[in-house]
C-alpha cells in the first residue's frame, strides 16, 4: 500500500479576519483512486482545489506532495510538484489562449517545466502529437487555433495540455458541467480511460453526482467549509449517513 500522492492536512483557509472558507479539512489522494469533492456553491470546494494546486497557501495546516510539505522556496520540490499535478477547468473557452495554436498550448507545460530544453524540434512535436492522440484528437489539430474547435474538443485540448508532461494527479474543477450531455459522457469516459492507461488519478470538484459516481472511487462531501462525510463513493452516496449528504442524493433528478 503506497501513501497518498497529494494530501491536505487539517487545512484552514480564511480571507483576512473573516470567517474561514475552509476549516480543518483533510483529504488524501491515493494513487489510482479518483476522488470527488462534492458540495454546493460556497462550500469551499474550489478553494480547496486551489490550495491543492499550490495557487494559494493555507492559513493553517499543510498541503503535502509525496509525503513532503509544499514550500514555495523548495524549488526542486515545487518543480516536481508542478510536473506531477496538472489541472483542467470548467470553461473550455476561458482555459485556452485564443491567440496560440494548439501545439503551443499543449507544449506550454513542457516548455515551462524545462522538459524541452535541448530537445530537437521533431521530438517536441512528437510529444504534442502523442498527447493529442491520447485524448482522441487528430494530429493536424496541432496547427489550428482553439476557436476552430467545439466545446468538447476544446476540453480535450485542455486535457492534452494537462497530461503532456506525464502528471500523476489531475485536478479538475467541474470539467464537464459546461458540456452537452453526450459530450459529457465521452469526456468522463476519456478521464476514466486515462486512469487505466496512464495511471492518472483524477481529483474532481463537481456538483453533478452522476458524473461523480461514474468516474470517482472516493468522495468527500463538503458543507460550509467542512468535510461532513467521506469514503468510498458507493458507500457515501449509496447509504449516506450525514443528513446533508442524504439531501444531496435525494435532490438529484432521475430519469423515469
Amino acid at each position: 500500500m503506497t501513501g497518498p500522492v497529494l494530501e491536505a492536512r487539517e487545512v484552514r483557509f480564511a480571507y483576512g479576519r473573516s470567517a474561514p472558507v475552509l476549516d480543518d479539512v483533510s483529504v488524501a489522494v491515493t494513487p489510482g483512486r479518483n476522488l470527488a469533492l462534492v458540495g454546493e456553491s460556497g462550500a469551499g470546494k474550489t478553494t480547496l482545489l486551489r490550495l491543492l494546486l499550490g495557487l494559494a497557501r493555507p492559513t493553517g495546516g499543510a498541503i503535502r506532495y509525496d509525503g513532503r510539505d509544499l514550500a514555495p522556496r523548495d524549488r526542486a520540490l515545487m518543480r516536481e510538484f508542478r510536473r506531477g499535478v496538472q489541472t483542467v477547468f470548467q470553461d473550455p473557452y476561458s482555459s485556452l489562449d485564443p491567440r496560440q495554436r494548439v501545439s503551443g498550448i499543449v507544449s506550454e507545460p513542457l516548455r515551462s517545466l524545462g522538459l524541452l530544453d535541448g530537445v530537437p524540434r521533431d521530438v517536441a512535436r512528437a510529444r504534442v502529437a502523442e498527447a493529442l492522440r491520447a485524448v482522441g484528437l487528430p494530429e493536424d489539430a496541432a496547427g489550428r487555433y482553439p476557436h476552430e474547435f467545439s466545446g468538447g474538443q476544446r476540453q480535450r485540448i485542455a486535457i492534452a495540455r494537462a497530461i503532456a508532461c506525464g502528471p500523476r494527479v489531475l485536478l479538475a474543477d467541474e470539467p464537464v458541467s459546461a458540456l452537452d450531455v453526450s459530450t459529457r459522457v465521452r469526456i468522463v469516459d476519456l478521464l476514466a480511460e486515462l486512469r487505466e492507461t496512464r495511471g492518472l488519478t483524477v481529483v474532481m470538484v463537481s456538483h453533478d453526482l452522476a458524473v461523480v459516481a461514474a468516474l470517482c472511487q472516493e468522495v468527500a462531501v463538503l458543507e460550509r467549509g467542512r468535510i461532513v462525510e467521506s469514503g468510498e463513493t458507493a458507500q457515501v452516496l449509496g447509504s449516506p449517513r450525514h443528513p446533508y449528504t442524504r439531501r444531496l442524493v435525494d435532490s438529484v433528478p432521475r430519469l423515469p
Partner: protein
Amino acid sequence: MTLLDVAGLTIRTGGRDLVSGVSFSVEPGGRLGLIGESGSGKSLTALAVLGLLPPGMTASGAVVLDAPGAGRTDVLGAGERRLNRVRGRAVSAVFQEPLTALDPLMRVGRQVAEPLRRRRGLRGRALRAAVLAALEEVRLADPERVARAYPHEISGGQRQRVAIAMALACDPALLVADEPTTALDVTVQADVLALLDGLVAGRGMALLFISHDLAVVARVTERVVVLRDGRAVESGSVGEVVRAPRHPYTQDLVASARHLDRALDWRTP
C-alpha cells in the same frame, strides 16, 4: 381550444436558419418541454413565443397565443404595444440567470410591486399586501426581509423564487421557463422544481419548459419536443421519449443521460 400554437416557426439571421419549421402546441393547463443541446434553437424558440427575438433575426411561420381575457394574438405579426399587453397577462417568463432578470439597484419588493401596480392597479396597503403574498406564495422564508433586500443580498435560489413571483404576479395563462434551474445547486434545483410544479398545478397554468437536462424536463412536463440544429426531431409523451426514443439523435441523447443516470443506481444490484 389551444393556448399556444406554433406552426412552421423558422428563425433566420444572415441567411442562416437557426430554427426551421418547428411546430408544437400547448393546451390551457398543459405542460410541454423543449429539450435540446447547445445550438439546438430551444432558447430562440422560447424568445419567439415571447415576441422577444433579438434584432437582426427574422421569424416566419406562426406563433398564435389565445389566452382567455387577452384575445387572440399573432405574436410574430403584433406590434410592441400589443405584445406589451400580452406579456404578463397571457404569457410571462423565467430565465436561467435570475441575477440579470432583476434590477440590481432596486429593492426586491419594489420590483415585485411593479407588475402588480401596473396590471392590477393596486396601490398603497393593498399593493404591499399583494407583494408579501406573492413572495409568500413562492415559499420565501422571510418575505418581509426579502422585500427589503437588494438582489445581491439574497441567494441564487431566493432570486429565482423572486423572479418566479414576478412572472406569476399577473396570473399569466402560460409560463415560459428557460433553463430556470441550470444555474442553481442540486438541492435548490429540487426545491425550485417542486415549487414550479405546485404553482403551475395550483393555478391551472400552462408551462413551456426549456432545458438541456432530460431528467429535469421529465420531472415537470408531460410532453416533450426534442430539438436538434433548429429542427424538431421527435415529440411525444415524456415516458415514450425517454423509454423508447425513435430518432437516432434522441436515442443517443437518452443513452448518454441513461449512462450517467445508471451510475447512481446503488440500491438495485
